[in-house]
């Protein structure tokens, strides 16, 4: 094998490791970063200096070199307005409180991240300019695991990999439920962004139970049963008493969540993953209609992915293998390549969990439902070593994988990815119109339709991966324009995103109407009058 090819662009960061280890260097700004409105350079420098006194020099970054790993993002940022101006990494709640005090003193906004790997949604970049990343990754303690109640209490920096390792090393027969990039992300961050996984515990906010939140004024709130004299039910009962508060700390900037409880699923005696293959794009409507009653009745117990062939192919193949055209890849090109790789145009992944008798009965009902709409129901034994089946069979048992990172290579080396994820009711009549609209807008900007639908309990999340080459500035600009047109074009039809990246938070918030925005603004003003917590998050200033 020949020696490594050294990429000059990559080597610009050769000093990064050393710089990060010693913390802030001379200049108190990240490359291309813009200071927050109303904050002077002197304020920023003073805030960073005060934060160094709290966490130590090694855990504050304030110059372009040391900030580089916090500045990397897959989402479009043609004008550089999302780059952070600093990063600070506390190791405990007391340090979080001290940092918020400094932020209030200098009116310097901070942007909390848990594991900081919300890839395709912004990672550790910020919605509004001039913020210091409050990086909670060092707070990675697993505080409790109750093997009787099947619950855990964890800090924001705990990854799913850590959870899995802890359970395995202690022979605890509980499963975790992971999003598609499990090893490097964790339950707190994913739940707070209302992310999902693919086991029966896939709706993460539904299986969240109890939070500890540091408020902007430094107060510590424990939600649910956490503030009672004996908080033994903190992870057992979600609601506590009075208004249910946990929700206002998800997708928000009203507090810094420093502990979170979650429920874990007991490992089932039998696990049986299946894929249902359909050959035509237009089959999507009848798949949705067949799936809805099975999900509502719980016969299909997990969060289901209906994976479009193009999305599947983009994980393990490059665009150039499928088409030579610059224009949007056609359904025919995708169908031909998919058929060669044992994939349908739609590949619907479901799994069964329980005793052999339970699984057998559910399988009988499911086979009947899909036989009626020409679905090809395939088992592990039939799919053998098909890499896509293996990937989804891993996810549906809470297994760890980063194979989706491969999506970032579809359009070239640049690693551009932005998720567009509008929600609709789980009805077949809601599908084809969305697909037609998405293809139209994507084609206008020269991008492919690489998408899936996730079926929750009663809704469809249309998950569109906007894949572009970020190393090409013109293409990055087109991706940004395209994303905005997707948000407004879908918004006009009432299909609005359940989640978005830092580049489009304000625009998505606008789709939900002025009263929603005013209520959120009033809560924000009451809880964080200096607006030091993540201004711009979910369109809340």
């Amino acid at each position: 094998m020949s020696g490594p090819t050294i990429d000059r662009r990559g080597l610009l960061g050769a000093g990064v490791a050393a710089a990060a280890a010693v913390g802030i260097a001379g200049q108190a700004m990240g490359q291309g970063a813009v200071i927050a409105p109303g904050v002077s350079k002197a304020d920023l420098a003073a805030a960073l200096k005060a934060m160094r006194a709290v966490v130590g020099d090694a855990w504050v970054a304030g110059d372009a070199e040391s900030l580089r790993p916090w500045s990397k993002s897959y989402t479009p940022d043609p004008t550089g307005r999302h780059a952070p101006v600093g990063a600070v990494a506390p190791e405990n709640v007391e340090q979080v409180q001290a940092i918020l005090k400094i932020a209030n003193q200098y009116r310097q906004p901070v942007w909390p991240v848990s594991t900081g790997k919300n890839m395709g949604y912004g990672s550790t970049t910020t919605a509004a300019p001039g913020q210091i990343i409050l990086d909670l990754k060092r707070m990675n303690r697993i505080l409790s695991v109750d093997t009787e109640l099947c619950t855990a209490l964890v800090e924001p920096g705990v990854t799913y990999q850590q959870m899995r390792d802890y359970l395995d090393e202690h022979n605890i027969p509980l499963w975790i439920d992971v999003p598609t990039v499990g090893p490097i992300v964790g339950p707190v961050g994913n739940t707070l962004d209302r992310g999902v996984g693919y086991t029966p515990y896939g709706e993460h906010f539904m299986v969240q139970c109890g939070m500890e939140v540091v408020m902007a004024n430094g107060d510590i709130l424990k939600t649910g049963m956490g503030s009672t004299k004996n908080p033994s039910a903190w992870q057992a009962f979600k609601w506590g008493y009075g208004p249910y508060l946990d929700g206002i700390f998800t997708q928000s900037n009203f507090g810094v969540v420093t502990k979170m409880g979650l429920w874990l699923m007991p490992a089932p005696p039998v696990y049986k993953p299946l894929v249902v293959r359909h050959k035509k794009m237009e089959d999507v409507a009848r798949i949705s209609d067949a799936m809805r009653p099975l999900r509502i009745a719980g016969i299909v117990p997990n969060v289901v992915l209906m994976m479009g062939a193009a999305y599947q192919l983009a994980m393990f193949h490059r665009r150039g293998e499928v088409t030579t055209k610059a224009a949007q890849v056609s359904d025919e090109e995708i169908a031909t390549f998919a058929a060669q790789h044992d994939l349908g145009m739609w590949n619907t992944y479901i799994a069964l969990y329980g005793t052999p008798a339970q699984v057998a009965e559910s399988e009988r009902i499911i086979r009947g439902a899909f036989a009626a709409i020409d679905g090809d129901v395939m088992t592990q034994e039939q799919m053998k070593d098909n890499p896509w089946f293996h990937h989804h069979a891993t996810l549906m048992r809470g297994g760890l994988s980063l194979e989706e990172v491969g999506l970032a290579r579809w359009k070239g080396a640049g690693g551009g990815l932005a998720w567009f994820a509008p929600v609709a009711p789980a009805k077949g009549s809601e599908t084809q119109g969305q697909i037609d609209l998405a293809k139209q807008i994507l084609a206008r900007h020269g991008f492919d339709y690489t998408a899936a639908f996730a079926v929750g309990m009663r809704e469809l999340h249309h998950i569109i991966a906007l894949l572009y080459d970020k190393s090409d500035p013109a293409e990055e600009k087109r991706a940004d324009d395209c994303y905005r047109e997707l948000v407004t074009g879908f918004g006009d039809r009432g299909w609005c995103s359940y989640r978005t990246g830092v580049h489009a938070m304000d625009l998505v918030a606008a789709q939900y109407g002025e009263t929603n925005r005013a209520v959120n603004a009033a809560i924000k003003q009451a809880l964080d009058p200096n607006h030091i917590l993540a201004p711009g998050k979910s369109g809340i200033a």
Partner: protein
Amino acid sequence: MRRWALLPLMLVAAPASAQTGQALGQTLAQRSPAKTYASICAYCHGHNVGPIILGRKLPVEYIQAMVRAGRNGMPAMRPTEISPAELDALATWISKAPKDIKEHGQ
């Protein structure tokens, strides 16, 4: 021959280096380079997504720079994710590691 001779040693060594030993209420201790590689890098490199990096004698500084900068589609890893001490050990380990015949892909 040499590869087979090493196998028993690897089987004995694997469980200890693959464990985090994290106890309840404690932060994650410094991981061995083999564990760091298995917990983060190996999910892509040698596993369909990223290029194979073991057995290539990549320069230590080059590996460190790649980890922190995250070239192209690769995510950047912050010092809060892979500590400076872990990165030093990891980069040296990757640089010296032999090819792993179980790895495959791009």
